[in-house]
């Protein structure tokens, strides 16, 4: 369904009750009556089958602005459903009973802004843990001072974990926040009667650093440091999304060489990330040799990045307007050739893994997520693509010139751990293919356009290695951040994490975690 058809349908369904207009870019903004909000979003989600991207709340001088963002409109377009309330009224109707994917978005907003969502059955104790924070702290409000640490704490002394399993002998297996090995901090509360996980409840945000809050008031270039550093294993993708948002606001076109370099670096990062992910999967199945071999390749790629860009995690390369520095075309070519060698080695390992039955036994039919649930949670990235939902922002909402490149988005239908592994392998292959094309079309030229900041807001997006990342940015006239909202892929996918572990045995948990490849830092922000 394209924009025109959508408008037509909505007019027919709710005649005269919906205000609609096209934004400058490919965005359809819909402003329904508040009473219609839930039904309209529900229809967009199920009736028009638009994936749900996320929710952005902004506090302006006198009112709340709420945006539910949908994407995937035919021909590459966005839909924003807007709702407004005076500042004094702190409630919005919840859409998550119809759009389940919005559930965590609304919970987060409730926790950070103090807004209530009428009809949402599960609010509170989300980002700010109630066993540490008292209720009523609203850190994202403008009047809240982000600089001062909060010294007075009144944690809820009677805090108890949520339990929903009612079976004789059921108990909660708490894992984390500090658990074995080199792992990020997350607390998994697994309800069980032994052996199988009946219900999984990830308690996240142990690493909440308030990126969105502390970015406010900083100059765009300094906020970029935050975008780059909040989830550094995919630093370039997030930095790119931020820069693209700023560039959209200012209406700048990035020089061609910069766009191609961005594609090259983004794919280098994806390749490195996926090799690391495969290494982690091998390690989770205790296949030590394969894990080590993959880790060798990962380190090779990290060193390659260091040689090419000066930083192993590609920090400090992109900036609003283009690139901070030019990269040598010859070095890019060399990097591509080295990547091709690494890919060849990876493919040999892939072939060997495919014939290691002990490895496959632990991946196949483990951590299954159905297509329906994937759609229902609007999951993104390799996880969604392994469950038969083949969506890739590089294809459906191309940016940075991806439309000019020839590549494929792999998809599998099984939805299990092995399907996810195959998707990751194939994506790595496609990344090298993209790097080849990018290195080939590198024309000499400027890499940075001068940027003149304007007031405004825009959405930037990238297909980060873990899936679709959305960055909403509002700048003031002097180029300072007024509102910054990140909807990272891990936040979307953690929402569906419980689907993959429930009804599987405890010993499968590390493997499922590895194949899901969720980042806590990226989620917690």
């Amino acid at each position: 369904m394209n924009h025109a058809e959508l408008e037509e349908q909505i007019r027919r369904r709710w005649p005269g009750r919906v205000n609609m207009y096209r934004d400058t870019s490919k965005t359809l903004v819909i402003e329904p009556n508040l009473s219609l909000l839930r039904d309209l979003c529900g229809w967009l989600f199920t009736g028009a089958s638009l994936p749900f991207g996320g929710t952005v709340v902004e506090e302006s001088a006198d009112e709340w602005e709420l945006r539910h963002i949908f994407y995937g409109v035919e021909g590459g377009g966005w839909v924003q459903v807007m709702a407004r309330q005076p500042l004094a009224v702190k409630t919005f109707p919840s859409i998550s009973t119809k759009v389940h994917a919005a559930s965590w978005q609304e919970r987060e907003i409730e926790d950070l802004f103090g807004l209530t969502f009428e009809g949402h059955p599960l609010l509170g104790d989300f980002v700010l843990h109630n066993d540490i924070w008292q209720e009523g702290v609203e850190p994202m409000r403008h009047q809240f001072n982000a600089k001062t640490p909060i010294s007075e704490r009144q944690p809820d002394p009677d805090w108890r974990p949520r339990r929903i399993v009612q079976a004789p002998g059921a108990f909660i297996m708490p894992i984390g926040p500090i658990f074995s090995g080199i792992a990020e901090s997350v607390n998994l509360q697994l309800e069980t009667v032994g052996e199988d996980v009946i219900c999984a409840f990830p308690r996240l945000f142990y690493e909440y650093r308030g990126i969105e809050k502390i970015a406010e008031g900083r100059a765009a270039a300094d906020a970029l440091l935050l975008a780059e550093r909040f989830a550094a294993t995919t630093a370039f993708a997030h930095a790119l999304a931020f820069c693209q948002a700023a560039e959209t606001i200012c209406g700048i076109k990035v020089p061609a060489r910069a766009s191609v370099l961005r594609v090259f670096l983004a794919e280098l990062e994806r390749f490195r990330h996926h090799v690391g992910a495969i290494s982690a999967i091998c390690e989770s199945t205790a296949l030590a040799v394969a894990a080590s071999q993959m880790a060798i390749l990962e380190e090779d790629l990290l060193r390659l990045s260091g040689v090419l860009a000066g930083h192993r995690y590609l920090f400090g390369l992109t900036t609003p307007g283009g690139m901070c520095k030019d990269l040598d075309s010859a070095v890019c070519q060399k990097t591509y050739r080295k990547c091709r060698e690494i890919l060849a080695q990876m493919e040999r390992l892939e072939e060997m893994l495919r014939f290691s039955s002990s490895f496959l036994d632990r991946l196949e039919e483990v951590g299954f997520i159905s297509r329906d649930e994937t759609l229902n949670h609007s999951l993104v990235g390799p996880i969604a693509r392994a469950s038969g939902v083949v969506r890739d922002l590089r294809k459906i909402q191309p940016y940075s010139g991806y439309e000019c490149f020839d590549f494929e988005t792999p998809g599998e239908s099984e939805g299990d751990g092995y399907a996810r592994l195959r998707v990751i392998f194939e994506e790595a292959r496609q990344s090298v293919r993209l790097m080849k094309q990018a290195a080939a079309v590198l024309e000499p030229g400027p890499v940075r356009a001068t940027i003149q900041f304007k007031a405004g807001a825009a959405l930037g997006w990238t297909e980060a290695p873990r899936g679709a990342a959305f960055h909403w940015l509002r700048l003031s006239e002097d180029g300072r951040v007024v509102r910054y909202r990140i909807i990272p892929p891990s936040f979307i996918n953690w929402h569906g994490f419980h689907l993959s572990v429930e009804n599987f045995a405890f010993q499968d948990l590390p493997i499922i975690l590895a194949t899901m490849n969720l980042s806590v830092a990226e989620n917690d922000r």
Partner: protein
Amino acid sequence: MNPDIFLYIMAMCGIGGILALLLPQRHSPKVIAWVGSLTALFLIGGGGRALFTTSAIEKTLWTIPAVGRIVIRVDPLSGLFLVVTGVVFLAVSIFSGSILLRLLNHYNLKVYALMYLSLFAAIVWILISADVFSFLVAWEIMSILCYFLVAYEDENDENPRAAYLMLAMSEAGALAAALGMLLFAAHAGSLEFTALKHAGATGQISAAMRWMIFLLTFFGFGVKAGLVPVNLWLPRAYTAAPAAFAPLLAGATLNLGLYGILRFNGDLLPVLSSGPGLLALIIGTISALLGILYATTENDLKTMLAHSSIENAGIITVGFGAGFVFTASNKPVLAGIAFLVALYHMTNHSLYKTLLLIGSGVVDDRAGTRHLNQLGGLIRQMPVTALLFLTGVLGIAALPPFNGFVSEWLTLQTLLRSAELLSTGQKIVFALCGAGLALTAALAVTCFAKAFAMGFLGMSRSPKAEQATEPKFSALASMAILSVLCLLLGILPTYVIGGLNHAISPVSSTNEAAAALVPPFFNGSPGHEKLPAAFLSDFHDLGAQVGQHIAPGPGLVILHRGGTKNPVVFAASPTYMFIVLAALLAVLFIVVNLVFGWRRTVTRRPCWDGGIRRLLPEMTYTATGFSNPVRVIFQSVFRPTIVEDTRETVGEHFRTAIRRQDEERHILDRLLLTPGRKTAMAVARFFAGMHQGHLNAYVAYVLGALLAGLLMNYLL
């Protein structure tokens, strides 16, 4: 010795009962405690003397015209049972003195005291009666008293039902056993055991009749012993029985079933073919396996112990079965060892099971529940109880240095002696049963690790468990007696074997069994046939003669010798093991203190919880969770049916509840009882269908019957 002592003991019980009736109710527990324990002490003395007398002592009480002589007779076999009964009653009587008080205003304690002491007398009578008539009369008295005692706490509706089931099944068993005895008596022409034994020995009974009598008595007495498939009553009755009575069910009345089996099939009418022995082996193994499987997954402490009694009865029966087969295969020494080991295990089971059931009664009383999912952390509130319970747990889980280890290890070793049998088929059955028992032993460790860990360790899962306190001294004393015995039987097995060698004299044709297990390292003359010089010197170097001038008896090493090919079949010395272990621990303790200083500071930190704010009791393993892997692995046995598997949601996808509940029916109920009941109902329905109420139909039946009769007459 004079068998009258046992009559006096029975009389003391009677006097005690009358005393309880005369005194006010609040003194009834004291009467039980004092009279019961005193009587029990006498019984231990009397039984002990009987155990060590070489020949049986018989006394005719009186002669009843139509029945014959009423005889009491005490031989070493009944002597052993009397001693075990005495020990169990001693502990339980002391325990009753305190635990019964909590029933004071609910139930009539006078009646309880009377029934308790009468039961004591009845059990003594069963063990000393030497004619079928008085045996059956005593057995019936015992059965009925058990029924009343199990149903005693009748405020809970479930208890009388459980008691009724027990009565029904034990009556059916008693009928079968009685039928078997009467068939036997018909051949012997007398009801006296001496006459029966004579008839059994002279071989005037056909093989088919022997089979018949074996099956009737084996399964008849098997009801009381708790053998598959006639044990469905047992877990329910144990659970229903009052805390002061349940230990007796396991420690005393269960033994009576075993006594019946051994008396009739080992002593009076020894099994001549290997068939019955193999049957006993198989039944024993299945009982043991099913018993421990259900015990492992059970979460009510008392019910768990009940299922474990089935397991132990199974292990003992396996010993009996091996003894029967070895007897039939003309291996008297091995048969003797098998019976000896079985009786060793029986003694052990009585001790630790009584201990654990008293412990479960204490836990129930102090923490308000027996359900393991609601207990936890009791070791902090009840350290002494926990320690005593732990000794029982180590015993029943067959871990050294406690008694269960010795007898289970010996049972397994005995089964391995099937190598000496000639028939391959028999060897296969032995091997399979051995494997079954090994699995049982492994599961028993899981089961009792769970019982102790979930009950006493970790965090308290209910407020009452958190506020539990130590019981009265008398309860601790009763447990302490049994704990010490558990340890002694575990570390001094060579002396126990010597004693048990007397007990098996009625069922064994040789008295070499003990000598075959315990070589005379201490008192044998070197170079003797039993103790060749080379052998002695080898084992002298290993330390087998350590302590020969201090310790009495033949030695401290259990060692079974084979032929020239493998001179030592199996060997162990729990005594030395214990001493070495204790010494090592002591040395370790000293070394650690020397190295790190006697006054080093020890820092205690809370349990590492992964860094969450507070580890809550609901975040720790429950008993269900602990045993769930066993339930999953043996799914085909448990075959749970899902009663409820629902999820509640709001707004379509927000889950608010996941309810799961499944139900298990015991495998015997599923495979035997229910199909049996259905068949019976179908047959009944068929016959009910014939009763149509029409006159002409009945006339037709009469006519048909007449014709059939005429036809038969003509044909015959």
